[in-house]
């Protein structure tokens, strides 16, 4: 039986069955927590957001309607809204870069194994500095391996718009990351 069908059945059961909801929690907690953390970069805030996401999911699961996308898309949507709510509450603390703003310097300091390990941190640090929508699209695509159609559903955009966000995000990284960080360079 396809995984997607199993998931739908589990979600339907979870509308009435606490144990099924628990199974959903076990299945999706890691990625929702990871996604929340990628957006807030703070463990305590990530815990708050994750908690809020699952309590909202529990409260609204009876109204959830399967729409052809994974259940996780819905959870990602709630996460995005929870993050946005958090920052609205924090009086716009989230820093939004304009398209033309410069990324922080990511000049390499070492060229050995540490550098290779550091690539990941740097490139994801650079993604953190992208404009909000680009950042969300990049994290969902490259961090969570979501399909473009799913990302479109999560962000409330068309697939074409998501492609544009990804394209702009990659292009910006290409322009602004130092060449030493790119593959094929020691």
């Amino acid at each position, binding site marked *: 039986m396809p995984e997607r069908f199993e998931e739908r059945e589990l979600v339907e059961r979870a509308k009435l069955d606490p144990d099924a909801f628990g199974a959903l929690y076990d299945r999706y907690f890691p990625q929702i927590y990871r996604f929340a953390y990628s957006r807030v970069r703070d463990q305590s805030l990530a*815990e708050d957001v994750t908690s809020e996401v699952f309590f909202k999911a529990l409260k609204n699961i009876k109204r959830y309607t399967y729409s052809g996308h994974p259940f996780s898309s819905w959870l990602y949507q709630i996460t995005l809204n929870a993050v946005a709510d958090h920052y609205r509450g924090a009086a716009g603390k989230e820093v939004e870069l304009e398209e033309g703003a410069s990324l922080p310097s990511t000049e390499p300091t070492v060229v050995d194994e540490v550098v290779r390990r550091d690539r990941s941190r740097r490139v994801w640090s650079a993604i953190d500095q992208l404009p909000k929508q680009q950042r969300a699209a990049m994290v969902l695509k490259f961090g969570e391996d979501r399909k473009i159609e799913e990302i479109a*559903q999560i962000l409330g955009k068309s697939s074409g718009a998501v492609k544009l966000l990804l394209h702009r995000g990659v292009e910006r990284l290409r322009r602004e990351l130092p060449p030493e960080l790119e593959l094929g360079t020691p």
Partner: protein
Amino acid sequence: MEDKELDELFTDPAHQEVVDLLKASRPATPPLDPNFRLHLRAQLMAEARKTLTPRAARSWFPFTFTPRLLAPAMAAVAAGFIVVLGIEVYLANQPATSSLVAMDVSKLNNKTNVATGEPIEIPFSGPVDQAAVEVQIEPATSFTQQWIGQKLVIVPDHPLAPNTTYTVRVKPKATVPTPNASNPNTPKPAVAPTPAVVHFTTVRAPVPPVVPPSFRSAGVTYGFDSRLGDSARVNILGAVWTPTGQLLVTRPGGQPGPSTLPTASATASGSGPAASTDVWLMSTMGTPIRMVAPGGNFPAAAPTGGLFSVWRQAEGSHANLEVRDLQGNLISTAATVEGVPDRPAVWIGADRLAYVDGGTLRIVGLHAPLETPALKVDHGSLAASPNGQLLAVQSTGGSVVLDLTPAATQRLHDGATGFNWSAKGDLAFTIQRENGTDLYVLTDGKTSKIASSANGQTWSDLNWAPDATSLLFAARPAGGNSMSSVLMLINRDGSNPTQFGPQREYSAPQWSPAGDLVLFTRRDEAGGNAFWVATSAPSANDAAEKQALAEVDKFMQARIRGDSGTAQDEMDNAGRAAYQGGTSSLFSPAGTQFDRYYPVTVQLTGSNANKFLVGVRIFIKKSGVETSFFEEQLSLVLQDQRYLVDGVKASETMALGHGPTVVSVQILQAPPGQQVRVRFDADLKPDSVTSTTIQVKDANGQLVAARVSFDADKHLATVTVRLQKGTYQLVVTTGVTDINGMPLAQEYDAPLVISR
């Protein structure tokens, strides 16, 4: 890690390097307190046990009748508020935990006046294995099947036939999905094991006019109007009629409708205004039928129907000109341009498109490359003639009409702009003067100025009426803007300019192909422009015909309800004698009931509008179900300012539900001959509609030479003939079959009267 989406999206090696880096550089695992995960789970489970109700085992019936629920449930049923056509949906050997699903067809079953261009929606009470549901429609109808959550949405490929009772059967497919072998306790997919049947009847069609409508400005009136949903949120990025009278509309991205995804929940929605647009196929009532071009704008319908062009943003700052069918399938990408297009492409016939690329005119062939004339257009006007031979172009070097066949050109007056071609090949255009606008018409190579605006008024947005007798346009007073624009109607010869519509702030009018509606834009309260549709009523749909049909309606309604007095009052002596003589039954025989009727054809048979022949189809109900119908040809004669039934001829009774049937017959003058338009209720096999299966015979029973064409989208066969004054017979044989191969139950005959 393979990701085809990324491979397709990023083809530039420089981008691919970044993508490879991202794929190889997963984000760091965030710090996580394991106690947090456990603690949150415990909290959630405690809350879930308070708020979620465990599912109980259920019987086959989808409602649990506990004593507490029984009374209100029975009351509701008795009151008829809920009509659930029972469909259990289950699998054989299903475990006790699996669900039962019912269809709620209360909004559709036995409904009348159902719109012909709307999707059919059937909600289910629970999740259904969508792949296991099979739908059949009678009369035979091709359709696409979609799901919105638990709602089954059936979208007919063509508008349904009017005046027709449809039967929709929903049942399980023969092949039942296999259960999950690895986990036998997993609930199996639900299917519908017993067919469910829904009946509904479509709206009555407007009676085909005896006299084709004329849109001369003295005769057309503005009816009611309605606004198309959501359009106000879009700067005007295009809406256009399809040749079959549906609309292609640019809407803000992410709008709900069939084939799109509903908002997951209130908490998950509202992430801000949509940045993109989509192109939707919509009914004239503004109901979204399906999204046909996600991310698209500026649609342009192909004149031959079935296809449209649309602009869609591509990678970087490019835009693709795509050709799609009305199901939304991409047929081809015709062109790619730099920047963001500001206008739709222009179809030249069925297989070429003109567009502007960086200010330069381009023409692309869908099947073969074309040599493009070197014309700088910028924002100038562009329009192609209906036959695809001529292209009017406002270039920076002057306005011209290109003859695309021998590549000859005809120069127009300087400043000619706002081109619009009529169905008959007349080109209308305007020239702006310092103190107003001149309106010109080019016919057979000759240009004539037909009107000029007064008081510095500006005219624009020309649009020919379908019969080419008049033009609609937008008029703005001197110094005014679009806020003060009104729609005007003017005859083809420039006479009788008339304001069309009661309001100001209207612009960009477009007649529907049938001429019964006008699409236009209107300023809205938010300062944007919204698409609106207004009805129009040509007065040439003459009062005599309306009056005659009104008398027929009184007569028929009286017969249906058994009101002898009123029925007798609608007949003259000859009419009463015909019924008394047994030519037809005035009332239904015992054990049956006349259920409904509708006019199939209306023909003017007198030299003046004093005698009509009206064909009516009468449906017979037995035991509460329509089982058959017959037709009467009623002669109506004007007597003392009333039309009375003067005679009747009746057909044999025909059984319903046995193959396609004719739903209307219309005779149109099409000099030098006539067109007989025969409309069916089902999707037909096109190759079964020929001059052999649809015939016209003269009074001696001899075949008349005829040419037969078929429009599958409208279920319409058109017989082109040249008939002299007299009476003929239309014969539709049982050789006509529907898409399932089912023939007409019996031959259909109808008289054709040529009175002039």
